[in-house]
């Protein structure tokens, strides 16, 4: 029997990338993509092959580093959660214009239903926008195979390729069969050394080259085997099933006895021939997409005058949220089972800050100071500390995107809301907060920035923080006055002192920074456990 590895979708992609001969992975953590890079970081194969894998400061720096590696002729993978692609959008879109030299694959993990995100944007829009091929696996084996294929595709056409997954596949485990490893590329520069200079005169040429590749991308999708049309005798409906949705469809036909023709989509741009064959042979079309109704909207067209197209836009499927077997069954008029009624006594159990988390002490102190002011002045950011929005703390008023605490506070003070407070985590600060702080210094905005420095990226499970032991120096370097950079230790026993420091700095009518410095108790606990284990092992060796 062939040995199967039991892998998460994320891990299958990581193993696929290692086996495809990548020389580096560049990433910033973000659920549900984090485990890809973590897998490579702890893989022996990756270590032996010297694959670089440390975290980048943010998705933009990750994307650009990867483009650099591609320029130098080697294969690189970039991983991020969907909103990370907003941050990396500039280099991402432009990498389509420069084209790739070494294989360049961008993984974006979408989160329909917002299990742990602030929106449910669909990365396929970005792929279409950039005009590059998109791969969308339906299961863990395909995740492995497609990752490898994506690198070949990238080098064949000299283009970046977008690999799109959703939470369900990222975090679901199944058996995966590995294939032989491809050796890493040798260092080799592009034959055209001007291709990466996007001066308008060159960019125009490059853009035309990209436009010229479009029909080849489509032809490739028609023959790769990832877009497949299978017949069915009942032509009252034809189904288009993108990515994971294919499984939700087939769940209802365990004996492979689906009566309708179905077009399974794993690669974009979708081959028009296949689409046309389906369209011409059926009465109406049901589109299943785990995300926004992209294909559905294209098929309908703005006037919707063709055949009946069903999906999210006509209400056959809810407009928001991830798909599941029941939603697909209802769209197909199949009978759905009902379980027991959920008893009314069941209460929600939202996530909360860990017992003993430093953020609790910081926000308890801040809350006390803010009693002196009218409510609505605390601009916050994204991280564990965002949970301070919920009872019992209810400290913060905003959380929009990474880094927005400082910059929104600037705008609010410009509008007259003085004082305004920003609270931001250490990893978020180096991700996107530093430039905002520079703006504040340059405009002498009367804001107080509390940097929750817990020495880690807590929210995503405790990855190394690019800010480690650097926060104070960075603030000084950016130009915050030394006497207005204060360091507090968020512990209950220092509560009164901390309240005093926060009050003093809020009273200062310029830029002040308070660094609330105490390690995340989760990473602390993990370190202590590891230490104890090492000690025990050392003792038993003696």
């Amino acid at each position: 029997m062939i040995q199967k590895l039991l892998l998460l979708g994320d891990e299958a992609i990581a193993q696929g990338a290692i086996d495809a001969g990548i020389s580096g992975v560049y990433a910033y953590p973000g659920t549900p993509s984090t485990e890809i890079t973590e897998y490579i970081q702890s893989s022996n194969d990756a270590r032996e092959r010297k694959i670089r894998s440390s975290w980048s400061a943010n998705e933009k720096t990750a994307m650009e580093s990867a483009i650099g590696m591609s320029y130098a002729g080697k294969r690189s993978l970039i991983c991020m959660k969907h909103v990370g692609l907003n941050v990396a959008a500039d280099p991402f879109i432009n990498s389509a214009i420069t084209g790739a030299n070494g294989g360049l694959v961008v993984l974006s993990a979408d989160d329909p239903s917002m299990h742990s995100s602030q929106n449910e944007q669909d990365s396929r829009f970005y792929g279409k926008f950039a005009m590059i091929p998109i791969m969308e696996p339906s299961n863990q084996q395909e995740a492995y195979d497609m990752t490898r294929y994506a690198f070949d595709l990238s080098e064949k056409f000299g283009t970046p390729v977008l690999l799109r997954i959703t939470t369900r596949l990222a975090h679901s485990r199944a058996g995966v069969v590995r294939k032989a490893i491809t050796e890493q590329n040798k260092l080799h520069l592009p034959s055209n050394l001007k291709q990466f200079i996007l001066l308008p005169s060159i960019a125009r040429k490059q853009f035309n080259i990209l436009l010229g590749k479009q029909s080849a991308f489509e032809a490739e999708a028609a023959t790769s085997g990832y877009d497949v049309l299978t017949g069915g005798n009942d032509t009252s409906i034809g189904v288009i099933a993108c990515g994971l949705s294919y499984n939700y469809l087939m769940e209802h036909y365990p004996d492979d006895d689906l009566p309708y023709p179905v077009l399974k989509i794993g690669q974009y741009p979708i081959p028009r021939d296949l689409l046309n064959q389906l369209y011409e042979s059926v009465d109406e079309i049901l589109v299943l997409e785990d995300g926004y109704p992209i294909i559905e909207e294209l098929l309908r067209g703005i006037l919707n005058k063709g055949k009946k197209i069903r999906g999210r836009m006509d209400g056959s499927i809810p407009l928001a949220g991830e798909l599941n077997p029941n939603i697909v069954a209802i769209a197909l008029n199949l009978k759905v089972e009902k379980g027991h009624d959920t008893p009314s006594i069941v209460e929600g159990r939202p996530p909360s800050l860990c017992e003993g988390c430093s953020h609790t002490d910081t926000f308890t102190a801040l809350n006390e100071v803010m009693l002196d002011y009218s409510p609505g002045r605390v601009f916050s950011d994204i991280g564990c500390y965002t949970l301070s929005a919920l009872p019992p703390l209810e400290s913060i008023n905003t959380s929009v995107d990474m880094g927005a605490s400082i910059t929104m506070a600037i705008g609010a003070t410009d509008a007259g809301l003085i004082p305004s407070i920003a609270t931001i985590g250490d990893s978020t600060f180096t991700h996107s907060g530093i430039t905002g702080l520079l703006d504040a210094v340059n405009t002498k905005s009367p804001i107080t920035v509390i940097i929750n420095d817990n020495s880690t990226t807590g929210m995503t499970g405790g990855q190394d923080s690019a800010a480690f032991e650097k926060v104070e120096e960075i603030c000084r370097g950016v130009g915050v006055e030394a006497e207005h950079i204060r360091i507090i230790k968020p512990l209950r026993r220092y509560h009164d002192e901390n309240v005093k420091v926060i009050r003093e700095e809020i009273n200062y009518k310029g830029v002040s920074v308070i660094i609330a410095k105490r390690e995340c108790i989760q990473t602390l606990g993990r370190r202590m456990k590891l230490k104890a284990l090492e000690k025990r092992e050392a003792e038993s060796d003696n």
Partner: protein
Amino acid sequence: MNKDIILAGVGGQGILTIATVIGTAALLEGLQLKQAEVHGMSQRGGEVQSHLRISSNAISSDLIPEGKADLIISIEPMESLRYVHMLNKKKGWLVTSMNPFINISDYPPIEDVLQAIWDIPRNVSIDAEKVAKEQGSVKAANIVVLGAASPYLGISYESLEKAIESIFARKCKEIVKLNLKALAAGKNYADKRT
């Protein structure tokens, strides 16, 4: 063979360990499996669930369809009730710990929670913490619950034992022993009441 299992609990209670044990045992028996986990935000003391599907045939969906689960295994009583809409009304079993994990202010009276569990036909509720403590450590409460669910898994008890041995092998022998005892104690309890 075909089992759809919902694992439930609160972040940090060890439902993924249960999933790993069942998954490893299933592989030992040459079965296929898919297991959807919950990571990220919901782990921090919030509700967590995992869909575990085992079959001798290929499995399509990573998610179990509503009303089709054969088994709910929960390490927390109120959490077990959160997913009863997923349970197969005609044959599904609900196996849960009776020990509440109270980290919210509006946790319902535990008597009401237990009553609601007992109102579900085919249920097993077990004081897993007490049983685990009797075996040596309250930490093995999750494995006690797994033991109580073992008669309904469609996987042999020996495979579960082998899985525990291989998973905990990296830790010390005592931990393997503790978990094997916890598994047996849970199974005993379930056997006695059926």
